[in-house]
């Protein structure tokens, strides 16, 4: 009883610093293990994908968000509900392509990079590419195939951090055997 009252707020929330530092340790270990920046980027993306396909279930269960009817709605939900719930930030949605199948998420402060400086010679490292994987994996589970990549990164001296999302196609539900 008393322990419950001491703890303030949502017990599921942990210190953002703990998360950021853990992620930093993961990246530096991968850099040590692979010695090849492209491979590290790929591994981070893959890790993110595997997290995304599970995270979406937690997200849907907690937010009670229904199916989105267009990409604008999807972008809004990602920025205002998804990022808010898991990282405590609300990115700005902008730079829509004329055909409406691409948008950017602008992050003023990326919580993953709070204590990070990229060392010399690592300029190709996509430090936060785990986020791309998470988005791709999560959206795949709700029948959307997307490409996600970094356009700008504050770690590389850009003014803002920009994640680009491009809608590829809708994935169809599997048809049971013997039907068409």
């Amino acid at each position: 009883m008393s322990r419950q009252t001491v703890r303030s707020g949502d017990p599921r929330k942990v210190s953002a610093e703990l998360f950021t530092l853990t992620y930093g340790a993961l990246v530096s270990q991968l850099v040590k293990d692979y010695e090849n920046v492209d491979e590290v980027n790929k591994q981070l993306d893959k890790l993110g994908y595997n997290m995304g396909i599970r995270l979406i279930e937690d997200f849907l269960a907690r937010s009670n968000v229904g199916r989105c009817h267009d990409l604008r709605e999807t972008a809004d939900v990602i920025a205002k509900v998804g990022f808010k719930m898991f990282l405590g930030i609300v990115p700005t949605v902008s730079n829509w392509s004329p055909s409406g199948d691409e948008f950017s998420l602008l992050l003023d402060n990326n919580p993953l990079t709070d204590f990070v400086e990229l060392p010399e010679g690592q300029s190709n490292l996509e430090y936060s590419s785990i986020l791309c994987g998470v988005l791709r994996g999560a959206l795949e589970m709700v029948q959307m195939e997307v490409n996600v990549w970094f356009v700008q990164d504050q770690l590389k001296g850009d003014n803002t951090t920009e994640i680009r999302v491009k809608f590829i196609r809708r994935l169809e539900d599997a048809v049971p055997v013997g039907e068409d």
Partner: protein
Amino acid sequence: MTVFNLYIFDRNGTCLYYVEWNRKKHSGIASQEEEFKLMYGMIFSIKSFVNRISPSDLKDGFSSFKTSRYKCNFYETPSGLKFILNTDLNVGNIRDVLHQLYSNIYVEYVVKNPLCELGQPIKSDLFKTKLDEYVRNLPIFATKTN
């Protein structure tokens, strides 16, 4: 009131979990796999039938059907997981119950268990126990002793 049985399907039609409580009559199909396929096929057809025949835009889509003996309750998550719970006829709308089954049991004990492979039949005993406990404690579970 009573609950007969529960099917959980993933979006590829794999039966992730099946459990029964008060089922008195069996389908007579030798293999359980065949019954799962039939069930999934029927749900799939009803879903597309309901969507096509609806005179206006649907919000939730197909949610249940009744026969003279039982009611089949259906809930689908945006990620394509399907929960099918057969109950008797006195049960009202149990969408909330099925959503809770998803968020409090499936997500907690399957999604958050890294040893549970997604898209495969669920083997976790903890999940089985928690699910059984949850359903048995539902007000709609109350069985007549006869």
